[in-house]
């Protein structure tokens, strides 16, 4: 069983009806990032998963993950083919943060 927290900021909350945080549960003892995006798509729609992948940074436990992205805009199905997503693993208690393009300063 893996329980992780996902945090949303700024325009990401336009997809989550204003929710800033959610808990995701998985049967396995660890979960790859592509499956986390699938879980988020179930909860908030595929467009959200596309927005995260195409436009946002993703941090796990406050560290940005590095993804190999070959094209500017991917559909949800194309996203699920991304090997680098499958290689990032989250475990119980991990925190994933969706970082939309910033508007600081």
């Amino acid at each position, binding site marked *: 069983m893996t329980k992780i927290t996902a945090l949303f*900021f700024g325009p990401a909350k336009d997809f989550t009806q204003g929710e800033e945080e959610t808990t995701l549960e998985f049967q396995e003892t660890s979960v790859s990032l592509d499956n986390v995006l699938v879980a988020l798509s179930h909860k908030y729609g595929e467009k959200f998963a596309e927005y995260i992948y195409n436009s946002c940074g993703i941090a796990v436990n406050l560290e940005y993950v590095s993804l190999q992205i070959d094209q500017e805009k991917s559909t949800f199905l194309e996203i699920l083919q991304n090997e680098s997503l499958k290689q990032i693993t989250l475990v119980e208690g991990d925190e994933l943060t969706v970082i939309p393009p910033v508007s600081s*300063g």
Partner: protein
Amino acid sequence: MLICPDLPSKSTKAGQVPHTHCFICKLGPTMEDTWFAKENGPSLKVFLTTSPLDAQKCIDFVKDPGAGAVVYFGGTTRDSFGDREVVSLSYEAHRPMALRSLVKISNEAITKFKDFRGQDSVQKVCICHRLGTVPVLEESIVIALSSTHRKEGWEAAMYILERIKESVEIWKSEEYADGGATWKENGKEHEKVQI
């Protein structure tokens, strides 16, 4: 409890101690409405706050006997965007990541801008960013720094601002007189995200 006098005036001033010895600043996190970077010290002051920013305090912090220049930037809420009247901006942040990024950028500037002898020119840096609602005319960000010579000071201040706008984990919502609001994105016109 001994805390430094830089914290909001509502705090108990049980004693006057520098940031580095302040019980609250050492903890790093929340004290009422202000959050300090744990890396703060005599030459670096980085914080987020929902209180109005005090530009003079930032300038006073960075002044240094070895510095010939003090450079200040204040970003204020403008009353319009295109043809829409703006009444306020609202900011939210991932506070730990934003503080960490601001410290990183400050250190980048200190390392990058050297004088003609190759020595660090930037002496002290202060960056504060406001969170919550910022009405027109009020600052959402203050950057102040001191440098040995003016050239590196100007360049470092511009560098810091541009790097902040690229990467610091803070988001701004623009609120209009007609009741609408949009999330902004640095570097591009940002329409409400299509869902």
